[in-house]
Structure formats: structure tokens, C-alpha cells
């Protein structure tokens, strides 16, 4: 076996021992390597949070931007150079909280990118406040009497917006999750993987055991082409379903842009056509 080209050597990893993020890191590097992707052609885009540090530990290009803003960045990277494989990966607070508006509109755009959300149902980096996916009653330093908001349902929302690929996975299940990640990365169009991940430090409720006990894969006869069925599964809470809920092939964003109609080159290979500009200016007489 050759060495995995996606493993970045010598990182000082800033996660807590036992954190679910380690498992995700490993699965990601394996999934990328098995897909035979090229690190030089792969860009990881993230926001800020514990999950959002993952690009620092993978041997790829990265754009580790602002909290909540990975998706617009990733969309533009993909559009500006469609030859790149683009993965937007961050935490649940980042993607569904601060970045919620980008989440819904990115799905509407359907750029060809993979959106992986480490869903630990808590804000890790800022030390344990509720995230949009925190369960009702979950007590935190900021919600001392427990969360009173309805948990955000990323799958339901994505299916409502006719996202082209919608899946949920749990880091505890290595085989299945690696497979789901690979399907998502291979999928042409926007692909969401809501990836359940225990935060051993700040979320004592949703532990490895809890996820084991409270998740179950979609039935084998689940039809990912059936949107209503996918939705019905997505709103089930007990257990939370795992697997690929929904998929639909649709035209991708970047290909439909006027700016690619006649010129297919990535932007960095283009130069302004000054003669054409001269002509255009001439039209203003």
C-alpha cells in the first residue's frame, strides 16, 4: 500500500482526545485517497470552529475563512475553476447557525461541491453553547434551563429545497460513513452530508453511546428518488435515520453561467479582450 497522499504529517492537532473529529479526519483522508483524487486539485473550504480546523490537518489546498461563510467561498472557487474538487466542511453552528442563509441558497444554486457538516449538536470551540441542532432541554452555560428551540432539521430543509444529494452519517460507523462520503464527493451537484459526531467535552448528552442507540439506517427499500418519503424519514427523530435520503440529478450552477457559455476556461487562464472592449466602448457613441 502506498502512503495516503491526503495525510498531512506533523500536525499539532488541536482537538480533545476522544473527539469524534479524529474519526472524521481519518475517514476523510481515506475517502479522498480511495477516490484517487489529487491533493493538488482538491480544495477544502471551512469556516471557524473545531470542525472547521479539519483542512489544517489534510494535505490539500485550503481556504479557512470566516465563521459561517464557507459555502459562498466554495461556490465561487468551484465556479472560478470548475476543474477543482471542492469540499466545504465545517461545524453545525457554522453551517446551520451563522451560515444558515448561505446553506439554503447554496442548495438552490446547486454548485458541484460537497458540504460536510460535523454535527456535534453543540458549539465546541466557544465552549459549549447550544447549536441549532441541539436537542430541546440540553443545558449549557448560555441555556442554563435548557434549550427551548426546535432543533434545526438540515435534512428536511435540504429536501424541501430539492437538494441534489442529502445524507446523514455517524462517525462511529466507519465503513458506511466512508461510503457515504465517497458517494457525496463523487456526486455531481450539491451534496450534503450531515455527519453526527460526539463532542466528548461539551456535549455529555449526545455521546457515542447515545448516537449508537438513537440512530438507525434507512430501510433497504428506501427510494432516494422519492422526495416525500425522504422528507418523512428526515423528520423522524427517534431514531435519527442514517444513509442517503434523497438524490436527484440536476444541472449544476457553474455550467449554466453566461460567463461560461462561449469560454470554458477557468478564470485564471483568461485575459480581458481589449479589442472587444474597444468595440464595446465604441457602441456608446
Amino acid at each position, binding site marked *: 500500500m502506498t502512503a495516503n497522499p491526503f495525510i498531512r504529517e506533523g500536525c499539532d492537532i*488541536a482537538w480533545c482526545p476522544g473527539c469524534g473529529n479524529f474519526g472524521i479526519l481519518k475517514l476523510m483522508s481515506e475517502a479522498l485517497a480511495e477516490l484517487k483524487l489529487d*491533493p*493538488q*486539485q482538491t*480544495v477544502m*473550504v471551512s469556516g*471557524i470552529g473545531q470542525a472547521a*480546523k479539519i*483542512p*489544517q490537518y489534510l*494535505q*490539500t*489546498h*485550503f*481556504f*479557512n*475563512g*470566516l465563521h459561517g*461563510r464557507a*459555502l*459562498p*467561498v*466554495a*461556490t*465561487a*472557487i468551484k*465556479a*472560478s*475553476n470548475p*476543474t*477543482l474538487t471542492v469540499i466545504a466542511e465545517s461545524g453545525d453552528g457554522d453551517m446551520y447557525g451563522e451560515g444558515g*442563509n*448561505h446553506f*439554503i*441558497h447554496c442548495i438552490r*444554486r446547486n454548485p458541484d461541491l460537497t458540504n460536510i457538516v460535523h454535527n456535534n449538536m453543540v458549539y465546541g470551540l466557544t465552549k459549549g453553547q447550544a447549536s441549532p441542532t441541539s436537542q430541546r432541554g440540553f443545558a449549557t452555560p448560555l441555556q442554563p434551563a435548557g434549550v427551548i428551540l426546535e432543533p434545526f432539521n438540515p435534512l428536511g430543509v435540504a429536501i424541501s429545497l430539492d437538494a441534489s444529494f442529502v445524507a446523514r452519517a455517524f462517525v462511529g460507523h466507519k465503513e458506511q460513513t466512508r461510503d457515504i462520503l465517497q458517494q457525496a464527493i463523487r456526486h455531481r451537484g450539491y451534496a450534503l452530508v450531515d455527519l453526527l459526531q460526539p463532542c466528548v467535552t461539551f456535549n455529555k448528552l449526545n455521546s457515542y453511546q447515545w448516537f449508537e442507540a438513537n440512530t438507525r439506517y434507512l430501510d433497504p427499500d428506501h427510494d432516494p428518488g422519492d422526495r416525500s418519503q425522504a422528507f418523512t424519514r428526515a423528520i423522524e427523530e427517534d431514531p435519527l435515520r442514517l444513509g442517503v435520503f434523497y438524490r436527484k440529478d440536476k444541472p449544476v450552477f*457553474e455550467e449554466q*453561467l*453566461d*460567463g*461560461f*457559455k*462561449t*469560454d470554458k476556461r*477557468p*478564470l*485564471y*487562464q*483568461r*485575459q*480581458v*479582450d*481589449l479589442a*472587444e*472592449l*474597444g468595440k*464595446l*466602448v465604441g457602441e*456608446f*457613441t
Partner: protein
Amino acid sequence: MRAQPTFNNEVSIVLCGEAGQGIQTIETVLTGTLKASGLHVFATKEFMSRIRGGSNSTSIRAATSPVRAYAERIDLCVLLDRDAYPWLRPRISPETLVIGDPAVFADVEGLLPLPLTELAQQVGEKIYANAIACGFVTALLGLEPTALEATLQQMFDSDRDVLAKNLRAARLGRERGEAAVSKKQLTCRIEADAGVTGQLFLNGSQAVGLGAIAGGCNFIGSYPMSPSTGVLQFLASYAERFGILVEQAEDEISAINMGLGSWYAGGRAMVSTSGGGFALMGEGISLAGGMESPMVIHLAQRPGPATGLPTRTEQGDLDLALYAGHGEFPRAILAPGTLEDAFDCARQAFAMADASQSPVILLTDQYLLDSSYNVPQLPIPAAPHEHRIVETAANYRRYALTESGLSPRGIPGYGRGLVCADSDEHDQAGFITERSEVRVAMVDKRLKKLALLRGEAAVPHRLFGPKNHRRLLVGWGSTRPAIEEARARVNDPETAFLYCPQVYPLTAAVQQLLLRAQRLIVVENNATAQFARLIQRETGRLADADWLQYDGLPFSVENLETRLRQEVCS
């Protein structure tokens, strides 16, 4: 009303009506006709934040020599609607020829009657009042009918019937106009300049859009907001022709982050927005600063705070542009004053952003964007923009420390290296660090780049008037033509005008001029003298006077002329 109206060298025409009545069409037709007749033409509009109704107007100056600024004086005032009248009242003098439908404006003394409703009915529909008015006005000015006819032909060439009706309407108007001329003994002595007909005629939004293309712009993600939308829509309409990726973002935060993503991947991106949207972009601008990403931000000013006056003009966001974004990093702010400047500053904004790997803000305003006039040519560069992206080597480090503070900029997928861009404080390779010595080195690295923006890469100032002046008027952005014209009119041997298209950072040359002036007068379209404060902050030099206006309207030439005369006499 004057008995024997005479227009010498110049005429100032104002047309006003409700939104939706077609003022925009009249403006296009009339300015086209005037220019085709060999006159220099300036037009600017003011309009309400509504789609129908209200009161809008367009002010047109036509002259023997170039005109580029708003003037208050009205020679011909065409009233298409009752509600518009009170808004224009203050600008109407005894010399003004007020033209309107006698059925509607029975009470206006000295009205030059033009039965618009009646005539339009003859043609078929109310909307033909526009062509009638154009025919009438061109007749008053003694222009050849062919120019108007040709303009209409061009405009309505897709629909024969509509064209025929417009031509008929124009003729009806012209006949009335000719009759009025002979009756009033109106004389018009505005000589044509044959050179004008071949010149360009465009507005500020178009000039900025063209300049952006010249700068290599190939990506714009933005959210509509008056008065910045024109530039966005301009680029959208040429997206295919110039290979520009255009996307309407869900909000301004998405827009600027898209822009940064595009630069990262090798694009040349810009965003276009106004104050409120720009305020939302502050964090993204800070990200550009921290990540050392080039970024071009077009900030089209309108009066604030908050929603303010969405369709009016002000220079109230300089302070904001100067400090938007948390933390410390360099930036440049360019504020063009003419259409040529608008084109050139837009182009230069890309070059400066690219060269300095920093955000550059292009600061315009509603007045500049919505004003149009003829210009001989735009300064199209001889060669396309420099290609500053490096092909990366395997050991590429995005933030390598160098003498100048600039690290060669690689992009993913071009070369063998990895491009690691980080929003946290980072080391040379782009990885998160908290080591204080690295922090200090990175702050110093980033701040060093200001020297480039202040020096080599800077857009130079212009000085109008005597080199040996005692009194210096200072202006930035859209006030340039009005100050220029007022200064030229007064033509005081001791007064010069310093125009700063680069408002930040101030170049050494500008600082010297400011410090040397004996009397410093800063002219600004805002209430708190923001540029005067910037000068004070940068040089310690206090302005001796601030000439301010903040009612949502641009400075008129007369306003500045009067102030300058008072100033010169006192």
C-alpha cells in the same frame, strides 16, 4: 418670464414628471438628439424611491463647450405632471421658460402652453407626450428635425407602428415649438461642435462597468442595492461577451465571500453595493486584509444613516470605507470625479488590489453614477492587466516573508504547491499559529504594503488653477466637475483646486500640497466633513473652512461659484 429669451452658448433644460411617465425616455431621446446636433451635453436625474408616481426630474445642459456638472439654473422647464412643480419651484427664476399643458397648469404665470394631453390623444396614447415634448424643445432650440428623427428611429426600430407614432408626435411638438419661437422671438445661439457627434455618451455606472472590464474583472457576486445595481446589471448584460461570472448573491455577506473565493481560485472579482450592504461586508473586508486577498469593492454612496434616502446622493461613507472591518490592515480608497476617472479608477482598483493583495474600495455616489455626458474617449489601456499569479513550487508558502511584505500569490491547481489561506493568524505556510513573534512579523508584513498603495501604485492627484495659489479648494469624488467649473468661472489667480481621486492613503505629494496651502477649503457632499477629518488625521492640517451640503442633492455649480466669490472678496 423674460420677453425675448436668448440662449447664448448654453441652455439648461429640466423635464419633470412622475415615475413611470417616461422621463428616462425623454432624457435618452433628448440627450441623443442634442449630441447628434453637435452640442456638448450633460444630464443628471433625481428621482424618488418609488416605481410609479411621485416627482422625478432630469436636468440637461447643452452647450458649445464641454459641460459636466449640475447647474441649478433652468432655462426651459417642461412640466409633465402637476406634483413635480413644487419640487422645482426653488430653481425656477423669472428667466425660466415654463412649459406645460395649459389645462393642468392654468395657474402658472407666464406658462408657455403645450397642450400635451390633447396632442397625445391625437397620436393615440398618453405616452406620446414624451415625443411631443422632445419635438417642442428641439424646435425651441432651433435644431434640425433630422437629429430627433434619427434618434427616435434608433430607439424604436423594433416596432414600426410605435416608431411612426413617435415620429408623428415629434412633428406635432415641433410645429408647436416653431410657432412659439416666432411668437416669443426666442433666439438660440449655441454653436455646434462637429467633433461632439462622434464622441462617447455614457453614464457613471457604464463607465465603472467598462473600467472593471478593462481591469480584468471576470467575477461579480452582488446583491441589488440602489444606486449600485447599475454596475452589476451592466456587467450581467456583458457576461457572455466578456466571460464574466455574474451571480446575484442571497445577501451582501455572501457576495463578498464569493468575491474572495474567486480571487483565491484565480478570478478577478468585484462586488457592487451601497452603504447598508457595505456595512454588512466589513467582516469580509477584514478577511481580505488578514488573508491578503485582493478584492475590489464598489461602494456607491447614498444618504444614510440606515435606509436613508435610497435614490439620492451623498458622500457620507468615506469614514466607513476607511475603517470597515475589524483589526488593522492596509487598504486603498479611490473616488473618481468624472467618467474618465470612473473608468480609470475602476480599472486601477483591480491593478492595485492585485499588486498589493489588499482590498481596494471604489467610492462613487448616486450623482456620479446617474449622470451622463459626452467624453472624447475612455483611457483604454494598451495592454491587458499584468498576470501576477505565480506557478507554485512544491514547497510553496502563501505567506512567505519578504522585504516588501508581498508574498508571491499562487492559486490552487496551478503548480505543484498547496495554497493554504487562513483567517486565523498564521505562519508563512498558512497554518494557524499563536506565537507572538510570528504575530508581530505578520502584522508588520501586512502593514508594509501600505507603502505601495501610497507610493508606486497610487492614483495621482490633479491640480487645477495656479501653481502659486494661496487658497486651495480640495475635493474628492463626484464634486470634481462642479468645483472645477466654479473655479474656472471665478478664475481667481490665487485659488487652485486640488482633486484627490485617491482619498486614502494620501500620497506624499498631496500631503505636501495640503500642508503648504495658506487657506484650505474642503468641499464635501456630507454633514461632518469626513475628508477634512481624514486630512487632519493624516497630516494634522486643520481645514480653514468646510463647504458642506447634505440634503440629498449634489452641489450645483452656482452654489460653489457663489461661495467662492464670497470667499475671494472677503
